[in-house]
């Protein structure tokens, strides 16, 4: 590995920093592939994530030429990424010229594109594997055991970032759902109170009026309640005393 310890420390700090700043998923993944390429001294790095059906999809690449993209994408079917993803263990220093039997579709294309070696590291946290990091080199046997550990550590940090981001998105969606539901309830109660005051009726009778109006007009309860609370005068059908 050609990278100094200082540069390595910088790379890890940069990756971890991105996790706390305003997080842009694609930017983050792009940065992980670029830094991995720097650190490992390889020609191209791609990052693939499993979709909801468990198929690997290319999310970011340090080199976006068409031949490169195709090499990443074909691994949805077979290749080192697929192996690292399925087994949860790295594939290091695979010699592409010897790999036709393992990966008959992938290996000849990679050799044709000018690559000799390929490596793949699982993106995993404990038992969960969410994708893989894929490295292409122009020479064979590029990575030492120590190098492989560093790349795996980088993959681990990226994985933690991705899982945190997923947990946060899920939490935001759920929190918004609860607040939406709470707001609807609050607004409907306010509308009931306002209608009860206008008509001098009970809260239950007010609710019947509100529901009856919505049903007759084919409107949604929450939307009518909200618009009514906002401007009671705008709803003569509800406010006119009978």
């Amino acid at each position, binding site marked *: 590995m050609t990278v100094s310890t200082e540069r390595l420390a910088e790379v890890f700090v940069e990756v971890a920093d991105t996790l706390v700043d305003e997080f842009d998923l694609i930017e983050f993944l792009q940065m992980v592939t670029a830094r991995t390429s720097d650190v490992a001294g390889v020609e191209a790095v791609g990052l693939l994530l499993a979709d909801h059906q468990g198929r690997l999809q290319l999310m970011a690449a340090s080199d976006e030429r068409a031949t490169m993209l195709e090499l990443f994408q074909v691994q949805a079917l077979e290749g080192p990424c697929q192996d690292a993803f399925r087994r949860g263990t790295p594939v290091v220093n695979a010699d592409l010229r010897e790999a036709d039997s393992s990966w008959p579709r992938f290996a000849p294309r990679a050799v044709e594109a000018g690559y000799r070696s390929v490596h793949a590291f699982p993106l995993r946290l404990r038992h969960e594997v969410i994708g893989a990091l894929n490295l292409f080199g122009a020479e064979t046997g590029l990575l030492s055991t120590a190098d492989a550990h560093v790349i795996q550590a980088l993959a681990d940090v990226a994985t933690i970032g991705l899982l945190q981001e997923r*947990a*946060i*998105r*899920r*939490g*935001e969606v*759920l*929190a*918004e*759902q*609860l*607040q*939406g*539901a*709470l*707001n*609807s*309830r*609050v*607004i409907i*109660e*306010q*509308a*009931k*109170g*306002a*209608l*009860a*005051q*206008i008509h001098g009726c009970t*809260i239950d009778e007010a609710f019947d009026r509100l529901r009856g109006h919505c049903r007759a007009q084919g409107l949604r309860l929450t939307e009518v309640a909200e618009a009514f*609370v906002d401007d*009671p005068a705008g709803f003569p059908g509800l406010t006119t005393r009978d």
Partner: protein
Amino acid sequence: MTDSEVEYARLCSLVAGEPVESGDSPGVVGWLQRLCRTAARVLASAGVNVVVMSDSRNELTVAASGDASRRVEDLQFSLGEGPCLESVAARRPVLTPDLADPGVRWPVYALAVREHGVRAVFAFPLQVGMARLGALGVYRDAVGDLSPQDLRQALTFAEIALRALLDALESPAQSASVAADVLGSRFEVYQAQGMVMIQLGVGAGEAIARIRGCAFSQNRSVADVSRDIVARRLVLSSDERPRGAP
């Protein structure tokens, strides 16, 4: 497991072991009530409660360790200011080890809770990403900082409360039932708010401010005053002086 995971699991199991009381709600609100009682004991505090915000201004007490702490939390709702609201707005814990400190940002609230024997209050936001769900409040009857261990435990209780709420919300149908649980008996407050809007010809914000003002000046809870308004035993007049109906 990391230290914080061990701590999380330990406090979770304490909550799980907390006896259910007859007044506890079913579902996640009941779990949060047990969490409040557990946290009050573990943190040696006079009371703990969890509030949830329906929007940036409106907070609802979901669970409290006891009636006294619910009344204290109610003051924050009545006054529309206090540490839980501030911790949600500021997205960080708000630690007030001495409510008599002249630098306290909510003097009216501080005075009111001190009359209930509260001397120190600590609030921790329940937040995930950009979403702010509510806060956990810890009340003590003695002046003083939380120890580093208590601070860690309070943050962990806030985390447990947040995850319990999120886990209870997996589908939109569940969020409606959790919302109904969270709203609890507060629905009358909003009915009263709607009535006052029409009575005084004012907006929702001003209507709730009038109800809060009336509750505070009569030293009653917002829920009590609201019940009287809905039952038409109390009509707020436009000159802000509340008068009782005959």
